[in-house]
């Protein structure tokens, strides 16, 4: 058993669009250690969600295409595992998911309880691997004893995510509970199957700012307590700083820098991340943007995709993408000209 839980290497994913083929992921690397909380940070459209969905194996069937690379999870390359096995033994059971939109991610016409129990019927930790791997085409019964055990688990978990009155909530329909409660339910469902990894795709974007902090604290506390690793995508650096052990920054379909949170915020090495940190609103009221705009993914710049906006760019940046190299402990950057000076202003 390796120390790494998930290792994405050279993953390339493209989408067929009306304007042509969009190269949404360009040979992306990502590493998640066991029990680690990793923040995947980037602007909208930088490929965070595509990367998250690639790991889950639920890219849109007809438009997305995986060009190359590997996604090694627990020593098995998920891209080489057959889809049926992925569906039965990996998704939900070993890797679970917290969606961005707690409003639309519950099925509106079934009670919350019936949806949670459906999850438990197929993914309960009470099932052993052989039972879980059985074909979904055969009729299957929950079994009275297991149902009771599962329901007990569910009630305990709802209490753990601090939902009042778990019994009553299970009998309700999704539209009858608040957004914050729904996201707590999503966290509960993600933890219930005792996975090794949770993929949380911007789990707080749709919520009120006041609730965001509570939910994040809860997620961090529960995941750390159970030793579950979390891949947390966000466009908000502050949020990432609060809960992540490690940060990976993406720009236009390329990962730029991977580093432990402390190292990242104190000594950002990639020109993009450095400028990103400088562009945070500061106490003296200044706002510094990054000149230029996000490139098109159909015709992306060759080499480092940030080079048209980069003040340090040289010829080689425009022809070949830099390989990752270490600039500190566990601190990897993909740049020919990493920034060495400390930023003028650290976060918080």
């Amino acid at each position, binding site marked *: 058993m390796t120390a790494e839980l998930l290792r994405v290497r050279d993953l390339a994913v493209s989408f067929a669009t009306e304007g042509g083929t969009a190269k949404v992921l360009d040979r992306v690397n990502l590493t998640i250690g066991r029990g680690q909380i990793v923040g995947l940070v980037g602007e909208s459209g930088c490929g965070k969600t595509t990367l998250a*969905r690639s790991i*889950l194996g*639920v890219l849109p069937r007809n438009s997305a295409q995986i060009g190359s690379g590997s996604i090694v999870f627990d020593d098995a390359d998920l891209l080489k595992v057959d889809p049926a096995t*992925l*569906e*039965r033994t*990996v*998704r*939900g*059971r070993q890797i*679970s*998911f917290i*969606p961005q*939109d707690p409003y*639309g*991610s*519950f*099925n*509106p*016409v*079934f*009670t919350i309880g019936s949806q949670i129990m*459906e*999850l438990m019927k*197929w*993914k309960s930790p009470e099932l052993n691997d052989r039972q879980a791997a059985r074909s*979904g*085409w055969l009729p299957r019964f929950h079994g009275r004893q297991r149902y009771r055990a599962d329901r007990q688990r569910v009630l305990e978990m709802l209490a753990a995510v601090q939902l009042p009155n778990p019994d009553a909530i299970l009998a309700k*329909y999704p*539209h*009858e509970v608040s957004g914050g409660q729904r996201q707590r339910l999503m966290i509960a*469902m993600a933890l219930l199957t005792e996975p090794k990894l949770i*993929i949380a795709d911007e789990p707080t974007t749709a919520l009120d700012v006041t609730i965001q902090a509570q939910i994040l604290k809860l997620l961090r506390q529960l995941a750390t307590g159970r030793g579950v690793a979390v891949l947390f995508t966000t466009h908000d650096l502050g949020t990432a700083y609060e809960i992540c052990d490690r940060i990976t920054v993406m720009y236009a379909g390329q990962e730029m820098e991977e580093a432990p949170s402390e190292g990242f915020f104190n000594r950002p090495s990639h020109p993009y991340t450095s400028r990103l940190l400088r562009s945070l609103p500061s106490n003296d009221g200044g706002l510094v943007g990054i000149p230029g705009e996000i490139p098109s993914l159909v015709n992306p710049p060759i080499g480092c995709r940030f080079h048209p906006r980069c003040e340090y760019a040289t010829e080689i940046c425009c022809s070949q993408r830099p390989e990752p190299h270490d600039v500190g402990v566990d601190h990897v950057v993909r740049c020919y000209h990493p920034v060495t000076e400390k930023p003028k202003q650290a976060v918080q």
Partner: protein
Amino acid sequence: MKFLVLVVNRCLWFLPTVLGLMVITFTISHLIPADPIAAAAGENATAEQIAALRVKFGLDQPIYVQLYRYVLAVAQGDFGISLYTQRPIVFDIATRLPATLELTFVAVLIAATLGIPLGVLSATHRNSPLDHVLRVITVSGLAIAAFWLAILFQLLFAMKLGWTPLQGRVDGWGPDSVTGFFLIDAVLMGDLEILQDVAAHMILPAATLAFPAMATIVRFTRAGVLEAINSNYVMYEEAMGFPRRIIVWKYVLRNALIGTVTQIGLIFGILIANGVVVEAVFDWPGLGLYAVSSILQSDYNGIMAFAIIAGVIFIVVNLLVDITHGLIDPRESR
């Protein structure tokens, strides 16, 4: 609680809707510039005889008095006397209504049991050969006229292949009438032979009616499934590894059915209208056939009775649809 309010609310609307229907039917039929009395009295009637008949049927009164009397009578179950057969219309209708209802129910049942699964398959296999074949079938289902399809079926299955009877509802007397629904009556009698005969008579007219209905159901189910399948909850269910079968046939289908159920309500109305033609072709002794003869004989009371009964059936079915909606979609009822 909200569900109860929904049911009561819909039921309260029932009476005003029926009243409106009666006023419209009555007005339209009295605006037709034909003189039913003259027709009923015959060619050789004198002016005095016609006038006497007019008084007898109350047609000498102003139209609003006639309307008032008519509504009162209908409320008591009296649709008047057929100008042609001289019998109370209620009797005529009572013997024919079950035949039409049975035919319509069977047609809807066929249309739904075939149409819903086919609609789901056509959505999950979008743009596959199966989807294209189904598209051709559904478009023809919507485009082909019922009377033409009926004759085509008769020519092929009854005349050429001889698999089914040509027309009628049963050979001989049929089962002892308990419900008036021959399929049920035959089962109640426990007579397999009659059941078989009744079913054989039922197949062609029911298939003719069911075909366009099935086409509509396929198209609406397909659209509903496609919409649901692109939703976030399906993405979530997939990400959590729910079996595909469960996602499609349980979670997606129930959402898609909300639209399909509405369509089934509307289809009922279309089937009653199509039934007039189909019953005429297959000589099916139902309301439709009665309506056709009433029209041919300018029998006011008969035509109005048909329009009102058909309307009431339609309203009742849509009342049931609204209630079913509340049962399927908790957002309406809770």
